[in-house]
């Protein structure tokens, strides 16, 4: 190697190390801080203790909020995935004039509908319907916001599934329900799995909608509660936050691993031409 190459190589490795550190440090903090007797915002070798866990479990709302998050995530994910799958299938297979325009419009509007601009109308509507502080209603609103993107992605996926599968099933006498259950859903499973995880992650991390629509601290999900974890002085409660953050991260990682192992994230239908 010429000195020039050595220099280039060293620079490359140093750059990659810096990038890696940038992303790794918060992860390491998440792994060490929950077990440190005096957790700070910096990264340090922990003075091992489980005291933080004790305090977090004794917190009146911490565990409850994680449960709330699960309810909210499951409701929103279930609604979004089921409706998006059926809608995407219909939009993929039925000829409607202006179908693509409709989809793009939906996608465009969806960023407004659940975006900041629509917060006030949504709040007023939910208030007048008496649905403030309802986790199910909040889940529904979150699902509504995710639907256009979910339909868009799933339609693209189902478009790539050959129609001959369904036609073949029809020739053999399958009813529309049988075609859907026996053929379409299993063949579209990798796409549906992808949307399920995506929707759950979106709902799990959603802050604005639950913050707005769930005023009662007992109903609030983890994403909202996290911002209220402060000590008497008003600064971040570093005893509870690290443990809580770790617990908050676990379900998403677990879901991802489970779905990836069970269904695989693939974006192809699997016909052999």
């Amino acid at each position: 190697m010429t000195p020039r190459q050595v220099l280039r190589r060293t620079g490359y490795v140093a750059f990659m190390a810096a990038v890696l550190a940038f992303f790794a440090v918060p992860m390491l903090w998440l792994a060490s801080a929950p077990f440190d007797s005096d957790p700070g915002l910096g990264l340090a070798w922990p003075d091992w203790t489980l005291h933080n866990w004790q305090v977090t479990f004794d917190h009146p709302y911490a565990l409850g909020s994680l449960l709330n998050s699960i309810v909210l995530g499951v409701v929103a994910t279930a609604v979004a995935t089921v409706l998006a799958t059926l809608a995407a299938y219909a939009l993929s297979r039925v000829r409607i004039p202006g179908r693509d325009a409709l989809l793009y419009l939906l996608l465009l509007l969806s960023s407004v509908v659940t975006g900041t601009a629509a917060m006030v109308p949504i709040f007023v509507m939910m208030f007048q319907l008496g649905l403030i502080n309802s986790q199910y209603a909040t889940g529904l609103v979150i699902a509504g916001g995710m639907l256009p993107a979910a339909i868009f992605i799933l339609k693209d996926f189902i478009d790539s599934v050959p129609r001959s599968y369904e036609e073949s099933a029809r020739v053999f006498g399958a009813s529309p329900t049988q075609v859907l259950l026996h053929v379409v859903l299993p063949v579209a499973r990798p796409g549906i799995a992808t949307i399920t995880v995506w929707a759950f992650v979106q709902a799990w991390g959603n802050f604005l909608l639950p913050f707005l629509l769930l005023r009662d601290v007992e109903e609030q999900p983890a994403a909202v509660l996290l911002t209220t974890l402060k000590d008497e002085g008003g600064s971040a409660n570093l005893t509870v936050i690290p443990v809580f953050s770790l617990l908050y991260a676990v379900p998403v990682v677990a879901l991802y691993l489970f779905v990836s192992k069970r269904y695989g994230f693939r974006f192809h239908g699997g016909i052999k031409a």
Partner: protein
Amino acid sequence: MAGIELTDLSTVYPNGVRAVDDLSLSIADGEFFALLGPSGCGKTTLLRTIAGLEQASSGTVEIGSVDVTRDEPGRRRVAMVFQDYALFPHMTVAQNIAYPLRVRRASRTAQQEAAVRTSSGLGLAELLERRPNQLSGGQQQRVALARAVAMEADVLLLDEPLSNLDARLRLEARTFLKRLQRELGLTTVFVTHDQAEALALADRIAVMSEGRIRQLGSPKEVFQRPANTFVANFIGSTPMNLLPGVVNGGLVDVAGARLKPPSGVDLADGTQVTAGIRPEYLHAATGEEGITGTVSIVENLGVTSLVTLECPGEVMVGVTVPEQEEPAVGATVTAAPDPGRLLLYDGETEELLGEAKVAD
């Protein structure tokens, strides 16, 4: 067991394309029938209309003397093998084959039995637990056939059954398909764009273009006496010579030669005709009236060679000669038609003059 009767059938797509245009056709019980034509001629649409996957715009489809024009595909007792086979990728071979029974909510044992019974006859017994993506193309095709057979339908429809196989396998599959059809005695309709496939497999062929049948007949009829220049052009592995000619004194002037018209065809002097003669039905002649030209290209076809002659009036004529008689490029050759093989087509309508039937 059932025949198929199509009456004044039209299938028009929403964009206004008449894929099947006022077509009537009767397919006998147990017949192996080919729909042949270039892509876009409506043959696949016709097949799909028989299956019920496309809705007929007018006319009727009868299967086994029952009008099924408005019936759902599943109620027509018609099995179909798709061009891509459409084997369900998430099911095993056994589950695929037994699927028609699963739809009817047959018991699991009945499903298993059907899979075993059907698969053994098709050489698939070892593969029952595999998934479609673990099979070769030929195996996939046989699974698709087995699934269609397991349905115990009255009619079997095949959409381009051999097009997804490579050339070598295609010949094997062709023989296999013909034997299977004979054994089952099932009324079978298949679509193909490959004239050799249609000639080899079918009892009768319908040659289609633009949603209409241009000729209906046995492979022999379609090959030996094409009813019009479209069919003449389409059928045959080497293109038929179609040469402009004029009737003159009871003979036909074609490419500098004066040929005797087929018996039974009387034409007035000066009539414009198109003379059709297959390269295979021309032979090198000595001392006989024939088309004389200069050899410009020689293509080796294995047992025979295709020789292209440049004739007077810038007309090209193809002649097939045995390998040992291959002439040199630049030589002058006279080619005469075999007796009874010259066909004349009307210069305007392009229809065959005389009878299209052949004696067996």
